[in-house]
Each structure stands twice: as C-alpha cells, then as structure tokens.
C-alpha cells in the first residue's frame, strides 16, 4: 500500500503502515476479528505515526500503551478534545458538549449533566430496561429458533431504552438508527445528510420543549442555567446532538460483540448460564476485549512525547481497543477471561471525558445478557452465516444470526 504523505516534522522512521480504517482486518468482512488484528501493534513501538487514521483520512500519532494514553487523556493543557468533528462536516464550528470542551469549561457542563446520568438515576430505570428486554426476547422465541440479534434484539432494545431515557417515542426508531449508521459509517455525502437531519431534529426538539416542557432530558437542557444564565441555542444543540449520537448504536454494538463471543465459546456461555452472578464482571471483560471507540485529541502546543516530536495541531489517537489489549497492563490481554480481576479497562475512556452514559450502557448490556441467557437455550452462529465486522473510528458488527434449534 502506498503511504500518504506525512508532515515534515515526523521522522520517517516513526511512520508505520497502520490504520484503524485500512489495515488488514479493518475492512468490512465476514467472521472478522478487528480487535485481534489491532492488538498486533503491541509487537511494535509504543508510539508511531499513522498517515491515514481518521474518517477523513488524516494522519495521527498512535499511542499504543495504556500508561501513555492515560498521560495524554489526563493532560488537557497539552491535548485538547476540541475538534468540531460534527460541525466541521457541515462547514460550521460549534462544539459538541461536553465532549469537545476542555476543562475548566468542560467541568461546568459536566456537573450539570452528571446527575441525569448517575448510577442512581440508572438504577431507577432498571425495571423498564428489563421489561423491554424480556418482551423482545419472548417475542423472538415464541415463534423462532433463530434470529438476527442485531436487528431483532440489540438495536430495538438499546435504542428504545435510550430514546425513552431522552424522553422520545420510538416511532421513528429506524430513522434514528439510519442516521447513526450513515453518520458513523457512511461516505461523506451520507454523513453530511445525516448530520443535517440530526441538527434539524435536535433544534426542533429544543424548540418544542421550550414551548411545552415535560420532564425529559431535553427539557432539562433548555431550562437549566450555568453561571446564572440559560444556555445559548448553540450550547443546547451541542449537548442534544452529542447525547443523541453517542448513545445511538454503541450499546447495541457491545451486545452484538458479546453475544457473538458467547456463541463461539460454548464454555463461556455455559459458565454465565449456570452462574448468572458472573455476568457483571464478565461484561467488564467483554467491554475490555471488544472495546469500540477511538479517542482523538489535538496537540495544543509543541511537545516531545516519548521520543515523538508532536507539533501543535497534530492529531493523537488513543484507541481504547489498543490500550485494552496492552500486555503491560493486562496479563494475557488476548485471552478473554470472564473472571478477570483488577480490570481497569478504559472502554468508556479515562480522565475528565469518561463516558457520561457509561452507567446506563453497563446496565443495558448486563440486563440484555441476563435476559438473553435465561430465555434462549444453547445458541451458536447459524450454519452457513457469518457475522460481518468492521474496524474504523468506532468498531462494529453488522449482523449476528444465532441458532438454537
């Protein structure tokens, strides 16, 4: 593969032919294992330069060690998270909040939103989450001994809960999921169209809640205050768009990777089926082993980092799927040990931007697996089918046909 040009300040010996988008194993493929493919970087240097490592084919530095990623994610003075990922697709420049704000502004908005997403708030949702899982699975097993987990369970489950959490009805669930897919995985035309649709939808929703408040998240956002003032339209949009995009398909994807693992590993499946108490720690291990998000930061100044001459404006990739397979951090990182202890993985990031939705996501995944295992007998990947996986900025799994006949 011909390498793309690299900036002059990057020493040629630090350039590697590696990309979360184009390296072997990253393409859309049947029975792929993008996580194992990416773990191979640990055979190489702790930091290197990848010439083509974002959705829009920009180069990034790649930090492979968990320890070094922690330094980057903790040091927002040197490494900013403001990139206008979303707005730039529209030729605009407003931040998604709190993701693209740096401390101290970040903390103001984060404190505002934290109580809405706290572990206690999520506990109150538990019965609704469980009921939704049970209803979906009962419907599946009433008439069938096979299904596509992604379209029959993972998406309708996770997206419904998420919409309910935001205070939205799920009549347009398929439309929302379509936007999310186009935005994360579509070409540039689809991405722009999806971005426009989401912005219009959030703006409209905000206007509706201003006029007629209810008790949902968006009403909170339009009514709340920071520093003694209401939020601006841009701030409301920045929060609405982020929360909407961040929660759309992440949880469904995690459930997909988890059930694919259990389908392929009957011993693990039997263990969790026999001892459901093990599901909670097992989900942590599965989050570690099948992490899905690449975190990116931008250098705010020139800085020499572990021998790399990082210059102001350079992109730095802290891919969670790489850190969580670091042998210096996890014993036998490529072995999936559902009883692993001391599992300080960073699937939900590290530092101030720790995933705001992590408590909700964890409960959904745990409840999803609990109900699936208690209702569906021994399952395997249906003969003649293959789950399609892909790498990229957010790893994914497209289909998962299970069979329990």
């Amino acid at each position, binding site marked *: 593969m011909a390498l793309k040009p690299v900036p002059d300040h990057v020493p040629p010996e630090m350039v590697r032919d590696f990309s979360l988008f184009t390296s072997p194993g990253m393409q859309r493929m049947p029975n792929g294992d993008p996580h194992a493919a990416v773990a191979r970087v640990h055979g190489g240097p702790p930091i290197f330069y990848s010439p083509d490592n974002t959705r829009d084919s920009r180069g990034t530095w790649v930090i492979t060690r968990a320890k070094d990623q922690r330094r980057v994610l903790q040091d927002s003075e040197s490494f900013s998270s403001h990139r206008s990922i979303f707005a730039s697709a529209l030729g605009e420049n407003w931040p998604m909040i709190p993701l693209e704000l740096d401390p101290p502004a970040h903390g103001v908005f984060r*404190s505002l939103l*934290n*109580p809405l*997403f*706290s*572990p*206690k708030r999520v506990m109150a949702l538990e019965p609704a989450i469980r009921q939704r899982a049970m209803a979906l699975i009962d419907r599946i097993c009433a008439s069938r001994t096979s299904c596509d987990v992604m379209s029959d369970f993972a998406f309708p489950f996770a997206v419904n809960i998420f919409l309910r959490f935001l205070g939205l009805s799920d009549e347009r669930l398929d439309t929302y999921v379509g936007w999310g897919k186009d935005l994360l995985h579509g070409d540039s035309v689809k991405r722009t169209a999806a971005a426009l649709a989401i912005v219009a939808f959030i703006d409209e929703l905000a206007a509706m809640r201003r006029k007629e408040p209810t008790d949902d998240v968006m009403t909170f956002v339009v009514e709340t205050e920071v520093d003694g003032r209401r939020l601006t339209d841009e701030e409301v949009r920045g929060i609405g768009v982020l929360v909407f995009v961040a929660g759309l398909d992440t949880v469904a994807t995690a459930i997909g990777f988890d059930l694919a693992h259990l389908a392929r590993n009957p011993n693990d499946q039997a263990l969790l089926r026999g001892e459901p108490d093990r599901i*909670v720690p097992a989900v942590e291990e599965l989050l570690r082993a099948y992490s899905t998000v690449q975190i990116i930061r931008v250098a705010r100044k020139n800085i020499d980092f572990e021998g790399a001459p990082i210059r102001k404006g350079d992109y730095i990739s802290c891919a969670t799927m790489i850190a969580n397979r670091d042998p210096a951090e996890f014993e036998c990182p490529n072995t999936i040990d559902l009883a692993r*202890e*001391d*599992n*300080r*993985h*960073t699937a*939900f990031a*590290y*530092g*101030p931007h*720790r995933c705001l939705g*992590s*408590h909700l996501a964890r409960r959904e995944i745990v409840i999803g697996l609990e109900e699936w295992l208690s209702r569906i007998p021994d399952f395997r990947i249906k003969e003649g089918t293959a789950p399609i996986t892909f790498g990229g900025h957010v790893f994914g799994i497209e289909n998962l046909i299970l069979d329990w006949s």
Partner: protein
Amino acid sequence: MRIIVHKDKCQGHARCWALAPDVFKLDDEGYILPGDVEVAERDELLASRGARSCPERALEIDCTADALLARLLFNQACGGFK
C-alpha cells in the same frame, strides 16, 4: 484497613461502588465522597477489589497499616495505586 481517597482524581466511573456499595459512597453526580474510608474487616476483600478496579487510580489502599494483608491476599505490594 483504610483506603485513601484522592478525590481530585475521581472521574465518576463508579467501579468502586459497583463492587463494594457499602464501602464506597457516591455523591449525586456519581463521584466518590471526599475523605478516606475506614473499612471493617468483613468488607476488606470487596473494598480492595473495588479500589483496584478504579481506572483513575483514585483509591489507594493504605499500605502502612495492612501491608502484610495486602501481600498475602494479592501477592503483590500495594496493588490499589499505581
């Protein structure tokens, strides 16, 4: 056993609380309450597991008091804080 809480490092992962809800208390935002935690003997195993699952290394198992216990249980010097 005592657990030293580095409140400034806490980012609200709530892993400590998930493993030992009786030991680690969170505020309304889901972040750990300030102040070190005295752990009753019956809670020690869970508490140290909770401390060692904190991704931010915000919880330090006080080694001076119970170095021997920590070594015996986990076969490592004070694991909670690296």
